[in-house]
């Protein structure tokens, strides 16, 4: 009995710093965000009670729906893309080759670059007039692309940057996953004559399922939060074609001085991401159960 108490006591001691920071800087602000979302508030001056008015306004706000659709499109394209390329890089660099360590490190380099710096770099690549991107296109005999004036092209440019930054992370996680696959399984498969694509399809991919699951969840969460690159590269434009929910919330709260409205958008965003995560988790559990 004394052992139990000591254990619980140790648990409380060890978790108390975390609980303190999470309570003060996460749980309380989340609750306050909900509270703000029921008000009209400019950031300074007085708060005015609105009840659910902000949420009703959101329902009729075309820009909100555009931002939601943009976020969905962006996530649906960039998440699979960076995961697939990350897996490709991991498979390529898993087994020994000359300078393998260096190549791995280089693939990872874009990950460690700040979104702002990445934005600056790609501003130079995607500048429609003096950018090297269009220069290379012209030299290859292709038409120039108006990266910042055309909504679709601007979205492509944002996806390009985030994918560029996402591949390395996918690769490292997959490399770790590949390390966890026992050599014996491959050897057994070799006896059965499985090789190449078949071996990947039958052994590697299924055994990497938990890795993929983690990456999908993680990437969706981060892609719903992408901000810095957009802030530097497109400002959400042209028009609202690369405005995602976080940009919209930020813009409403800090540029338009509608902090209550921004909080309401934030609450909706939170619910969406939470729901997506739960759905994926459920799907995984069901699949694990059926295996």
């Amino acid at each position, binding site marked *: 009995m004394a052992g139990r108490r000591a254990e619980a006591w140790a648990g409380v001691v060890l978790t108390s710093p975390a609980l303190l920071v999470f309570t003060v800087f996460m749980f309380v602000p989340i609750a306050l965000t909900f509270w703000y979302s029921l008000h009209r508030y400019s950031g300074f001056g007085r708060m005015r009670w609105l009840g659910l008015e902000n949420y009703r306004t959101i329902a009729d706000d075309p820009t909100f729906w555009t931002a939601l659709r943009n976020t969905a499109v962006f996530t649906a394209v960039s998440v699979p893309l960076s995961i697939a390329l990350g897996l490709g890089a991991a498979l390529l660099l898993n087994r020994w080759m000359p300078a393998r360590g260096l190549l791995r490190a280089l693939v990872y380099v874009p990950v460690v670059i700040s979104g702002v710096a990445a934005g600056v770099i790609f501003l130079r690549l995607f500048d*429609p007039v003096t950018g090297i991107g269009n220069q290379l296109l012209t030299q290859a005999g292709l038409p120039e692309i108006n990266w910042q004036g055309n909504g679709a092209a601007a979205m492509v440019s944002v996806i390009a940057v985030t994918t560029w930054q996402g591949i390395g992370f996918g690769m490292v996680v997959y490399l770790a996953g590949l390390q966890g696959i026992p050599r014996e399984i491959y050897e057994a498969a070799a006896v059965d004559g499985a090789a190449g694509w078949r071996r990947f399809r039958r052994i590697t991919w299924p055994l990497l399922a938990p890795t993929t699951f983690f990456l999908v969840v993680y990437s969706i969460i981060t892609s719903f939060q992408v901000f810095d690159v957009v802030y530097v590269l497109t400002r959400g434009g042209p028009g609202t074609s690369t405005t995602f929910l976080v940009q919209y919330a930020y813009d409403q709260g800090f540029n338009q001085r509608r902090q209550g409205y921004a909080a309401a958008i934030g609450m909706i965003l939170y619910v969406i991401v939470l729901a997506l995560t739960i759905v994926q988790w459920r799907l995984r559990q069901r699949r694990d159960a059926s295996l």
Partner: protein
Amino acid sequence: MSAVGRRTFLKAVGAAGAAGWLGACSSDDDSGGGASTSGPLSGSATFTTWANDQEAAAFKKLAADFKAARGADIKIEVLPYDQIRTVVDRRLQANEAPDLFRVSYTDVGSYAENGALADLSDHFGDSFGDAFLPALWSAVQSDGKPFGVPHHTDTSALVYNKAHFAKAGITSVPSSLDQAWTWEQFTDVLRKLKAANPGVSPFAFNYQLFGAYRWFNTLYQAGGTLLDDALENPALDSAQTRKALEFTRSLYTEGLHAPSVLVKRPTYPDEIFPTQKISMIQAGDFLIPSLDAAIKDKFEWGVTYLMRDAGAATDLGGNAVVVTDGAKNLDVAAEFAKFLVTKENMQAFCERTTVLPVRKDLADAKLAYAARPDLMPVFQQQATTMPEGLVKAATSRAFAGINQALVDTMDQYLSNPSAGTDDTVRALTDGVQKALKA
């Protein structure tokens, strides 16, 4: 010139009689706008502003002069233009606002309404405001109380690359307001420029982000109006608005406008012009020093009048300096604000940074502009074409929201040849309506 000529602007700014802004008699009356108090001060105040090199230098010089004259320190803090509003807001929220800050006329109202600014009635006295052009003096007031001083105004004209014009065989440009190009002539010029200068965009507008309202130049040139006379409802649902929208977009679809220069992104044409990738830009007078510094001897450039359609029109720009409610040193802040707009100091600032003064007694003065003084008369002339309705709207508290409606709406229309003009008019009307109600 019919609908929106010089007279309307004169009426709008309320300058008396035919003298008006550019011809106002100088006033020797020191009680208005003069330094009515001159005793020594102590302590310090912080003045937050955005600034290009010339503006920063001018403000620093004024702060040093103020220190010498009155004994109080002014700390000049320069922030990026895109961020200053956010940063000032954050500090207001934290009760750590600067004592004074620079703000566009269109933003004074919303700060005042939120109780962020200090009522300076006691510091100014009754006749202080008489020294300024009435429209701009009213722009720094809310509910009849003054919250700051009007500091300067600026406006747009056409800045062009002489070498590109020569190549296109265009040997002369309009030399007076009456001869300004019509839209047809203007489009013709752009077509010639395009043909003669491959790989170069003929033209770009300066309506980015907080400057989106500069598109209203085009609207008013077409004879359109933004708001009804009472400034209560949008008046955009008109053939003139459609014409202005279609004209603007046609420049993009015909390849006459730089494709990457739109409304929402901070791609400013004045930064591209020195690289000779754009032959002509609509640009504000305050850009002359930085253009001059960037272009140096690379090519010759000049300025001419904005194009016109049903009439001529240009925008009211410019900024005020306001004092915050939480100013730690209200006396110093208010006195510095007054110091900034004495006749000599306003003149010095305008000369150094090529902007237009807002004091009646400087309206007539010949200023010795520091950079390219040859160009300023065009801007001064062009300034007389600010439409009355636009000046009134631009100094109303809804204008920041109206500007935002443009930012959110224009790009989709301009960058998409199949976007419906009617839909855009409707979206603009909705946006303006929302801003008026907010």
